[in-house]
């Protein structure tokens, strides 16, 4: 299944784009996380990395579909 991943902050530099496509079969948040860190090892250096699905922070076991809005949320730095 093809997933579209929105990137923000430092994850945009690491993944190299605003919207990155990743192909995973029977994807969950946890599987997406392992696939992303396999492809982009620099993600492991972040203090935190949340995955948001349809505008809510997702649990690791949550199943993903190709129509979900998926976003990577690295440590925030507003203000």
């Amino acid at each position, binding site marked *: 299944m093809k997933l579209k991943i929105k990137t*923000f902050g430092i994850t945009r530099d690491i993944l190299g784009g605003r919207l990155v496509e990743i192909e995973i079969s029977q994807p969950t948040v946890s599987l997406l996380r392992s696939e992303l860190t396999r492809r982009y090892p620099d993600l492991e250096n972040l203090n935190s990395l949340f995955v*948001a699905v349809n505008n809510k922070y997702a649990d690791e076991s949550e199943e993903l579909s190709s129509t979900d809005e998926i976003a990577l949320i690295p440590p*925030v730095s*507003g203000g």
Partner: protein
Amino acid sequence: MIKITEKPIDVQKVIDTASSLNAGAVNVFIGTVRSKAHGKNVVWLEYESYESMTVAEIRKIIDEASHRWPLLGWAVSHRIGTLKPGEVSVVVAVSSPHRKESFEACQYIIDEVKTKAQIWKKKYLKTGRNGFQQAHK
């Protein structure tokens, strides 16, 4: 009012939105872009937001603040896009019957916005004569 905007923030408008005739105090925090970071000169900052999540997150912060303090009005405005040193990046305003709770609520809201709202800044720092360095912190 919760506003994420690319345009310069109208500070007076944020204050007016938060004000109330029943209030004895209006407390305002104005965040500005510093000219130095990591011992270098800041040339500009770029702010971005995951706006749909940011607005919901700030609403949660305001709900919690309203639960803890007797707020009569509030407004939060955060700038995104390219900002230069001296420009206003964020304004938080709250009003309440007395000053103590307005100070506490305003500090709570800006502290929570900084640590929870889905907003990111990227610093462009000057290095040497023509060089730039980017920093996410």
